[in-house]
């Protein structure tokens, strides 16, 4: 059963990613990316991380993609649709070779140090909100507080970039 779900979610996620890259319209790309993120949530659920699966849908497929779609909507017009130049022919090796080289390296590494199984069944309550919250607000409390500073800096930065320059307080 786990095997079937893994192949379904995994193949659909890769398919969603590929469609995102291939589509010309930015809106259609964004919708395919949401599709890929929902499949990633399925992978999280398979890895007995239900809390992460829910957060993936809420934060990634919800909040972040709404932000993207909102910006695409604001910048709509001929700029976003079509008009994309095809790649110059000599660039194709440059696009294709590095990923293939990385893939060969990783597959070689995995074959050498390959693992069997998933390390036994997950402990009781593994990845539940309680379990994650215990770590997040216990062992990793400092990191949790610091990430809020990262978000604060991001808010200030986005405001500073988006605001009219003449009205900034230090001008």
């Amino acid at each position, binding site marked *: 059963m786990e095997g079937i779900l893994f192949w379904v979610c995994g193949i659909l996620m890769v398919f969603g990613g590929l469609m995102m890259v291939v589509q010309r319209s930015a809106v259609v790309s964004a919708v395919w*990316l949401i599709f890929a993120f929902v499949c*990633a949530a399925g992978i999280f659920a398979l890895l007995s991380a239900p809390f992460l699966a829910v957060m993936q849908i809420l*934060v990634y497929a919800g909040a*972040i993609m709404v932000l993207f779609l909102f910006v695409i909507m*604001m910048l709509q017009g001929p700029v976003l649709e079509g008009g994309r130049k095809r790649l110059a022919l000599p660039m194709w090796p440059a696009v294709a070779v590095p990923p293939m080289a990385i893939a060969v390296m990783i597959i070689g590494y995995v074959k050498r140090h390959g693992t069997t199984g998933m390390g036994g069944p997950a402990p009781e309550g593994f990845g539940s909100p309680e379990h*994650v919250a215990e770590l*997040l607000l216990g062992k990793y409390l400092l990191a949790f507080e610091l990430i809020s500073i990262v978000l604060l800096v*991001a808010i200030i930065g986005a405001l500073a*970039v988006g605001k009219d320059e003449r009205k900034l307080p230090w001008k």
Partner: protein
Amino acid sequence: MEITLTHYLLLAMVVFLTGMVGFVVRRNAIVMLMCVELMLSSVNIVFAAYSRFHGNADGHVFVLMNFAVAAAEAAIGLAILVEIYRRRRTVNVDDLKALME
């Protein structure tokens, strides 16, 4: 056929490479940002897979941190793109080569 850690790692690799190729191939800056999000998401899968493999949920905490970083990155990146569009009327990276010349 049993699903092992290797399967999850290879899935993450394929997704990461998809995002990487997309970042190189696409010329629309918004779509390039979306490709970066896909790459970040594939890293999250590796975190969760190793977490499950070792039966240790520390990786889940880092996935949550990664969510916050991805949200911050998207917010700043899109703010910059909107500002670029206001000034230059384009988000096509072929037209944005002021630093290249």
